[in-house]
């Protein structure tokens, strides 16, 4: 992965920069040593590592602003980082960039039941929001699988999802307000405890912008009343085509489950070996379908879904009758990644989305790619919304296997786009999928996105080298070619 050429002049000024930063934050909040910086050299995409120029851990929003203003004035790049759980390299450091860690922003500022929201600092973990309100029967809906560790600020940067976003949406659908620090050190509040403002939805565009537009220094999140009942079905199928089709049948019947997950044979067996969750070993595909809501509704819908499964030819069907049983159904799915980790030294987790009806075609394509590259692939899907997580198994100790796995992954993502889907459903582009952006977007599409970037960060100082394969200077992007003397579409009728 080619990152932007580091600016040697900045690297040469490292000591001065660290000294200057110590004027802006407490001295022990600047991490200068190699050992100290080593802890920040990668995020969840650990195949890529880079020692940052320096690490700063501000403690107040004014300090974030001061650091940004300083870096902006000196032309120093900035990489923001929450908990560093990105699976796409969004927080991968750069050799000539200051890494701004938000770890010290770990306080919940306001739990407001009257307005049904929580105001929190960006370093608070996703799960801590739910923990803060669950005694009163509330929870925060987006639940990325890293929720025990990932930060809510990072969730905003990546627009994180989870297994329940079919019904409850992604971060963007559950975010009411943010405080934002721009690269020139301006502090802006967008949104708040109210629902819609009438301005440009800059909060909407900040969400999922992968740290390229600003640093989120506070979030206001919508909290929901916890559903009274949750029950799940565990359904086996002998062929993936039937399993894929039945997901559409459920939605076609007007039922939106809280979650609909699918696993293929390899994933089923790996998960069962790991978790003993009672998964049907012989099945080609497994569905976990969860319904939540008032008890009588859940019980009624469970029966309706069970009937749909029966008529679709399910080979096995279990319905949870207790919380213990429901949790057991999920135990296999939730441990799918470590379970696959046990059957292979390494794996790459991909994250494309396709129109759900193309799932059977995708399974066929993946099988043939698996043969082509000589690597196994285990599949877990958020089937309800067509979000795929193929896990490509490889051994990094074999000379060419990482490369083969990456090529395999790229081919899967190409197939996703070809089938009408997209490169990433929830993990983000980061560095991982950066060079594939051209598959989904034209050069003009990407230039328009980068012009938006220029409105926030005209010098490309924030998280450069992520998301976009080519960096264009803002002056070049802003240039407008007006065809002087050309007739303005004279043939169009003007009524």
């Amino acid at each position, binding site marked *: 992965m080619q990152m932007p050429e580091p600016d040697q002049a900045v690297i040469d000024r490292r000591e001065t920069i660290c000294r200057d930063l110590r004027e802006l934050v407490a001295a022990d909040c600047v991490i200068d040593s190699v050992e100290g910086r080593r802890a920040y050299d990668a995020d969840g995409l650990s195949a890529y590592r880079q020692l940052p120029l320096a690490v700063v851990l501000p403690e107040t929003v004014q300090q974030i602003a001061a650091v940004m203003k300083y870096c902006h004035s000196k032309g120093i790049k900035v990489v923001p980082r929450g908990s560093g759980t990105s699976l796409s390299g969004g927080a991968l450091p750069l050799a000539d960039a200051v890494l701004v860690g938000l770890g010290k922003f770990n306080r919940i500022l306001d739990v407001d039941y009257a307005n049904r929201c929580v105001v929190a600092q960006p370093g608070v973990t996703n799960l801590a929001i739910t923990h803060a309100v669950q005694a009163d029967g509330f929870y925060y809906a987006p639940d990325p699988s890293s929720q025990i560790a990932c930060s809510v600020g990072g969730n905003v940067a990546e627009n994180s999802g989870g297994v329940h976003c079919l019904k409850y949406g992604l971060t963007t659908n559950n975010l009411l307000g943010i405080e934002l620090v721009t690269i020139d050190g301006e502090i802006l509040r967008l949104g708040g405890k109210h629902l819609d403002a009438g301005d440009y939805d800059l909060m909407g565009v900040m969400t999922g912008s992968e740290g390229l537009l600003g640093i989120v220094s506070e979030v206001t999140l919508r909290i929901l009343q916890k559903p009274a009942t949750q029950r799940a079905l565990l359904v086996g199928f002998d062929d993936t085509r039937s399993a894929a089709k039945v997901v559409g049948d459920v939605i076609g019947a007007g039922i939106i489950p809280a979650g609909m997950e699918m696993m293929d044979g390899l994933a089923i067996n790996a998960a069962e070996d790991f978790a003993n969750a009672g998964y049907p070993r012989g099945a080609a595909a497994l569905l976990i379908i969860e319904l939540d809501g*008032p008890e009588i509704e859940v019980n009624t819908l469970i029966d309706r879904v069970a009937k749909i499964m029966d008529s679709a030819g399910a080979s096995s069907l279990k319905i949870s009758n207790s919380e213990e049983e429901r949790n057991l159904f999920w135990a296999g799915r939730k441990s799918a990644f470590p379970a696959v980790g046990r059957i292979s030294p390494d794996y790459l987790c991909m994250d494309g989305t396709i129109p759900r009806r193309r799932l059977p075609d995708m399974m066929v394509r993946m099988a043939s790619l698996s043969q082509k590259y000589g690597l196994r692939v285990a599949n877990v899907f958020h089937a309800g919304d067509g979000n795929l997580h193929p896990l490509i198994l490889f051994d990094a100790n074999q000379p060419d296997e990482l490369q083969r796995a990456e090529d395999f992954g790229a081919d899967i993502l190409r197939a996703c786009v070809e089938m009408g889907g997209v490169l990433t459903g929830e993990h983000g*582009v980061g560095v991982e999928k950066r060079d594939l952006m051209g598959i989904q977007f034209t050069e003009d599409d990407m230039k328009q996105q980068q012009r938006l970037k220029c409105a926030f960060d005209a010098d490309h100082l924030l998280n450069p080298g992520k998301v976009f394969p080519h960096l264009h200077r803002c002056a070049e992007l802003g240039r407008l070619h007006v065809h002087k003397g050309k007739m303005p579409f004279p043939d169009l009728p003007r009524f």
Partner: protein
Amino acid sequence: MSIRAKCHFLICRAFKVFVVGFAAVIRVSFEMINVTGLDDAAAVIAGALEQQQHLGVQAMATKAALGRDADYDEVINVSAFSGIIDYQPDELILTLRAGTPMHEVESTLASANQMLAFEVPDLHKILASQSAGTIGGVLATNASGPRRLTAGAARDYLLGFDAISGRGERFKSGGKVMKNVTGYDLSKLICGSYGTLAIFDEVTLKTLPKPEINISLLFPCDDLSAAVVRIAGIFASPHEPNAAAILPQAIAAKAGIDVAGATLAIIRLEGIDVSVADRAAHLLAAHKEGVKIDIDASTALWQQIRDVDLLADADGDIWKLSCAPASAPAIIATLFDQFDLQFFADWAGGLLWLVGPSGAEFGTATRSALAANGNGHAQLIRDSGNSKDVIAPLQPLPSAHYALHKRVKAAFDPRSVLNFGRMHDGI
């Protein structure tokens, strides 16, 4: 065919100036440019760039009264961008052209028993227009109804689009799948941008199944404050209300509901019949003075709330306030001290519809009350006099926000070709 089509641009401009003095009808008839697709629109924008013109963008113009009255050299009419392109109910995906009229969108969705969950308001009664307009207008104004409280706004349902920028360049964003974080989420930005950034054509929306039934529960409360608290209490229960409005007695009477001497908190429950019945029973057991109304009356009531019909015949300006729900009582109390006003609340108190005297004073006081109570957004929706001459219809932006908005506008429309000044002066 027009004379314009055959004559040179500059001559026609002169001609336009000449005819303006005679009749507004003539002026409109010479300035409307009908385009059939983005390539046409690109050509018109290229011309406007060359001539340094400002273009208005419209389809059915049902929302022309919203935003500032800006002056345009010509108006692009995108009504021809109409029709359903692809509808996959099982995928919850609808792709269509932005100029498609809402009645066509709704009948298409109804054929598969689905809906747009953000519950599109039809404001034609208060905007003095003919219909709910097009899906493009709905998205461009981020218009969302009562279910916005629990299901999200228009901006939450736009998955992707094709458009042409004010630079005259085509671009697309998002996709045709529900879960997508590839690149910036320009769908959010384009929603509610009043056509000031780009003209969109093909849009893809997430649809949802229509609930089998809905009913409403009416709870008499002493006042607005008590109603807000009552609703907050119900939202802290697991009975899943999906809309909540508050009607003062006089407004409730207009809706045909006669509850003596009380402000009414109204909760809607939707879903499958056994569930709705069960939840209603639980809530009525806990709140004994509650009254249940069944599906037909409930549907009719929420349509009146959604479309603001309840204020249509009131005299004065209509303002729409988005505020923190718990702030609503303080805001209303402040305004009641100064003005003779009518109001009702939706979104559990978070959306206030106000009718007050025409002019700057009422709007200014409304914005101050908002600022003193946790902030939000106040927009003039119906100008019954000449209020727009003296007060900005959209909430003015603080200077840093304004500067950023200007830069965002320039990123899409550097020469201010599209709907310039429609939202804010200079944007």
